[in-house]
């Protein structure tokens, strides 16, 4: 008669319970992470300085401080788990709706010999003849980078008066995404040799074929920024000139 199997060791039992709890957490986590994005939370200092690009709704959902604080404690831990494990959520894809114009960025560089050159995007249909069908995957990551640049300003219609109320504050948006702009402008400057100034310009292509260009940001690679200012500057459509941007850690 075969002997009954030995009872599992306490360590093994504990490990089985841990795996079970982890599995349950992995099941609950996506639901929780997505639901909590719709619950208004008070931003932390880390979310404000600079403002975090997030799908989280900010504010309060209750006047009761204890409940608000408890939910925030849970929500921030859920967010941290997502950041730590790379399992982030926030599925606000294709929102808000696309504007009617196609927006394409390009770089304009002033070189040391006084000339100005333009470096167009490979996706620009005015600069390069586009294939009837672009191959999938191949250029997608480069496109993502450009999209992150132009989507910041793609609801800003440059044909409308700049001082109309409710228009996007473009300098503030450049400041909030300073790393993104600085890196792109630095790369453009490097790949085209020495330049004294490099500007990011957006080209708005309307459905009827009109083209409007709007300066967006600039970098002067050889110039040290003023005390407390960022290296990147933003174009202010109201003032019609580039303006310096304060650093986030500046007093």
């Amino acid at each position, binding site marked *: 008669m075969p002997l009954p199997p030995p009872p599992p060791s306490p360590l*093994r*039992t504990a*490990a*089985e*319970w841990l*795996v*079970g*709890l*982890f*599995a*349950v957490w*992995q*099941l609950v986590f*996506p639901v929780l992470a*997505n639901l909590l994005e*719709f619950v208004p939370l008070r931003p932390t200092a*880390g*979310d404000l300085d600079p403002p975090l690009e997030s*799908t989280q709704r900010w504010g309060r959902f209750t006047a009761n401080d204890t409940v608000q604080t408890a939910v925030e404690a849970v929500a921030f831990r859920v967010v*941290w788990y997502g*950041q730590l*494990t*790379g*399992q*982030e959520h926030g*599925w*606000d*894809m*294709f*929102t*808000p*709706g*696309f*504007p*009617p114009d*196609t927006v394409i960025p390009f770089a304009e560089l002033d070189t040391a010999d006084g000339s100005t050159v333009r470096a167009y995007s490979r996706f620009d*249909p005015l600069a390069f003849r*586009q294939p*009837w*069908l672009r191959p*999938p*995957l*191949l*250029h*997608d*990551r*480069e*496109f*993502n*980078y*450009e*999209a992150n640049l132009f989507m910041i300003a793609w609801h800003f219609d440059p044909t409308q008066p700049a001082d109309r109320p409710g228009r996007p504050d473009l300098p503030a948006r450049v400041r909030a995404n*300073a*790393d*993104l702009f600085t*890196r*792109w402008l630095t*790369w453009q400057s490097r790949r085209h040799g020495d330049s004294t100034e490099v500007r990011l310009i957006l080209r708005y*292509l309307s*459905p009827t074929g009109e083209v409007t260009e709007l300066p967006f940001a600039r970098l002067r690679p050889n110039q040290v920024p003023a005390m407390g200012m960022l290296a990147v500057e933003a174009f202010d459509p109201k003032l019609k000139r580039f303006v310096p941007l304060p650093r986030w850690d500046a007093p």
Partner: protein
Amino acid sequence: MISPRFPWPFSRWKWLTEPVPAERLAAVRIATAVALLLDLCVGGLPYFNLLFTADGLAGRDAYPLRFREGTLYWSLLRWLPDAWGPHALMALWLVAAVAMLFGYRVFLSALVCWACAVSFQSINPSVCNGGDQLRNALLFTVMCIGLGAPVGRGDRAFSSPRPTGAIAEAWPLRVLFVQMCCMYFFSALYKLRWAEWRDGSAMFAVNHNRTWSMCPDLTAALPGWSHPVATWLTLAWELSFPLLACLRRTRPFVLGLGVFFHVVTLFTLEVGSFATYSLVYYIPFVPWERWRKSVE
């Protein structure tokens, strides 16, 4: 190799506790590896210097705000020198992806793939999209698959007639299903907040955008009625996905529509690897064990 013990009431939920044919988990692992290798070899390596090195748009100190106090983002590339770190980690990533494809030390290879994926995403998040979020979640799940082992033979585990091959824990597949439902459902909720999606005009602008559309001459020439139909169909499908995918009768329809949607967007919209990684989520629904049995 550890089998989980679930707390009540999960312990009584057959959907979670009853094992599944092991082929389904293997198929997820293989499909994840294929999608990853496609992503790396087509979408990453041709522009490696541009996308992932300090000579291009990346670098370990390129995006300091991402690693500010109050966040838990991390990257192995922050500890490796810019000169050779990205190259070494990419080589390791490729080796691990091939190992995962062939099922060699699944937990370890998926762990390396996951760590590399998170590291490269953190060092240059601006070249990423929702596809990278799916990729990380898939790799994390394959890691969990690697933790387990076949739990027995089907004929011992099921009282009703079921496949008789190797069976395995179902929970990693259930996690994928919940992630999939959340992605579609919450994506629809976000869309519902915007007038363009409610009034049916959203896809008109998408199809007429000359850079987002990968074949704008074709998508802009679609008949006028097709844009609101595409808008509302997307919205209705995403919103109803969790319910219709749970119901046995509607499941083939809603999954078929999903596969069609992702294949079409792969070739018509600049969504990149979002389409390929999304398709991996459909893999567990295919009865691979029947196909294997018929081959045998």
